């Protein structure tokens, strides 16, 4: 593929990334049904999530509506993995973006091409994977997410690296409305 084609494809990618991300962040007045980024100081507890090839430990987490949880996510596998909190629909939309990241060499098996991710694409877009509801980690990396759950049902944490979700790399977030 020549340079101009690559640029064109990247432009498409950046547009779609923007569209996909619109529900999750931006002007701060959205109400995504999975919840929103929280403050570490408000976190009621810390949950450690380990990512392997290709599954999570644990595979299910129970939270209370409105609870803020600090997730410590560690990639203990040999491949790049994501930890992303969202509805199945959001994951599906995000998988298309991740597919493009693979096609454009941003995700290469066990490594991320950071130069490609940070490349300025014009209009302020890039292939940065910096939505607050997710982290994308290379093997050995560890990061935190603080998330306040809205209380809506059907929320999963999932890895949207192509094929991983379909193969079963997801976990259920059970909203515990009791007590």
């Amino acid at each position, binding site marked *: *593929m020549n340079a101009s084609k*690559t640029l064109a494809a990247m432009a498409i990618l950046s547009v779609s990334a923007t569209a996909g991300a619109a529900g999750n962040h931006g002007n701060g007045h959205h109400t995504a049904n999975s919840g929103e980024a929280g403050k570490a100081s408000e976190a009621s507890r810390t949950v450690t999530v380990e990512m*392997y*090839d*290709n*599954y999570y430990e644990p*595979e299910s987490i129970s939270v209370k509506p409105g609870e803020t949880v600090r997730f410590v996510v560690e990639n203990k596998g*040999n*491949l790049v993995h994501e930890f992303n909190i969202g509805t199945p629909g959001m994951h599906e939309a995000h998988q298309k973006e991740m597919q493009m990241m*693979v*096609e*454009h*060499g*941003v995700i*290469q*098996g*066990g490594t991320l*091409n950071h130069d*490609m991710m940070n490349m300025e694409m014009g209009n302020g877009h890039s292939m940065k994977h910096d939505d607050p509801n997710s982290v994308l980690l290379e093997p050995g990396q560890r990061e935190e997410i603080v998330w306040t759950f809205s209380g809506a049902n059907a929320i999963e944490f999932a890895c949207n690296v*192509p*094929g*991983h979700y*379909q*193969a*079963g*790399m997801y976990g259920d977030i059970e909203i515990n409305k009791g007590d």
Partner: protein
Amino acid sequence: MNRRLVAGFLFSLLPALVTAGEYDLTVDRVDIDTGEFVKQGIGYNGASPGPVLRFKEGETVRINVTNNLDEVTSIHWHGLILPFEQDGVPGISFPGIRPGDTFTYEFPIVQAGTYWFHSHSGFQEPDGAYGAIVIEPEGREPFRYDREYVIQLTDKHPHSGDRIMRNLKMMPDYYNRQQQTVGEFFSDASEQGLLTTLRDRMAWGNMRMMKADVEDLQGFTGLINGKGPEQNWTGLFEAGERIRLRFINSSAMTYFDVRIPGLNMTVVQADGNNVQPVTVDEFRIGVAETYDVIVRPKDAEAYTIFAESMGRSGYARATLAPENGMEAPVPALREPSRLTMADMGGAHDRAHGDMAGMNHGDGDNSMPSDMSGMDHSGMAGMDHGAMARDQSAEGDPFYAKGSGLLPEAANGGKFLSYADLKAQKPLYENRAPTREIELRLTGNMERYTWSINGVKYEDADPIRLQYGERVRFKFVNETMMTHPMHLHGMWSILDVGAGEWNPVKHTVSVQPGTTVFMETEVDATGQWAFHCHLSYHAAAGMFRKVIVEGGPEGSGA
């Protein structure tokens, strides 16, 4: 070795002994009912296909095989890593199992995944002597599913294997009913012009090769788990479940293009080894290969598993449904495939003198793409992104550029390529090969002779390998047919250009007009078979014995 050491050694075997599984198999004459015809064949424990053998990684299995036939038999455990004496190839591993005898196989299970077993004697395998092997891993699977099914494909032909071989020797096109006709000549002429069509037919006639030579053996009924299309094998599910389908192609001769209209399939394993999951709409399964896929039907509907032969001369069909009796539409067969000059690679090359200056009708006289871009000796810094772009721009790199066999998904979606297969977890450290061995896949369709480097097995010396080598095999397909090459006893690391992530297989398909590389860590002393898994090609001579010399004392244990 002193007494204490012996005792310690024995003690270390205890866990294996505790989990030893014992299995009994009888080899029997059976009736095979395809729904279209009933024939006498060979089966295990009174049926063809035989039972699904379920092993557990880490156990030692004992399998008592009793031969109730009036001829020698054998069982080869396809894809299993085991001592060569247990590999089940008469004349290479052991003498075979005589009529009335019981032979006890015994070997440790050192792997997990989907495999199969079959007779390695005469044409017993095409006659029905095959079954599935499912090995549960010691640890957890790197994927999740709610239920699983073995989907074992075969191409059941009304004729016996012996008769098919004889007919092919007598008339190589005996079973080919997709040959180009006068009608096709006129329709091509009206589309492409009379002169172009005439030149095209002349070019092929000059080589004495047929564009329609995709499937040697037509007239079969495709079976799934022993059931013909009308008998419709059905697997049940509940909506929303993830189902693991373990596809095994136990055909004698037939490649299948598999799809499930309405569902995409996430390929998680190939030839028993986990691969990085890749979601596809359709995949081609070579003879003797296995692919495990996960599907997730969200609706409580019936779905057709449709396996269309590569040459489109037949199909197998099964159903996934919430309840028995439900069925979904069965798609029509697509148009028969036609080879192009690109597929002719080697043959075309050799015949080229006769065709100098000829403008081929296909408009593509390119030499085989030998995937020179994929021959990376130092693969470390390779840009996988560039690889993916190449694929989308030029099609599947494992087919000759312009190949008539290049698969396309029926729904226009994603068709699995070998280039998509990446090991989930590398089995071996990635290192440079110690030497390269070129194997030209050769043959003559008009004589129905098949060979390697122009030499049939009967005339060939064994291939000698040294324990500890990493050998790079270079397959150059000079024939117009696809050959699924199967090395026994050691893994075939298929070079897809992914370095340490190259997938580990037991059977590697080499398309016409292409060159494919695979590497083998020579880690199993003994002698092994290495052959094309098309039954009638192997029998015609596309077969080798591999001898692995050296190695640690008692490495076969």
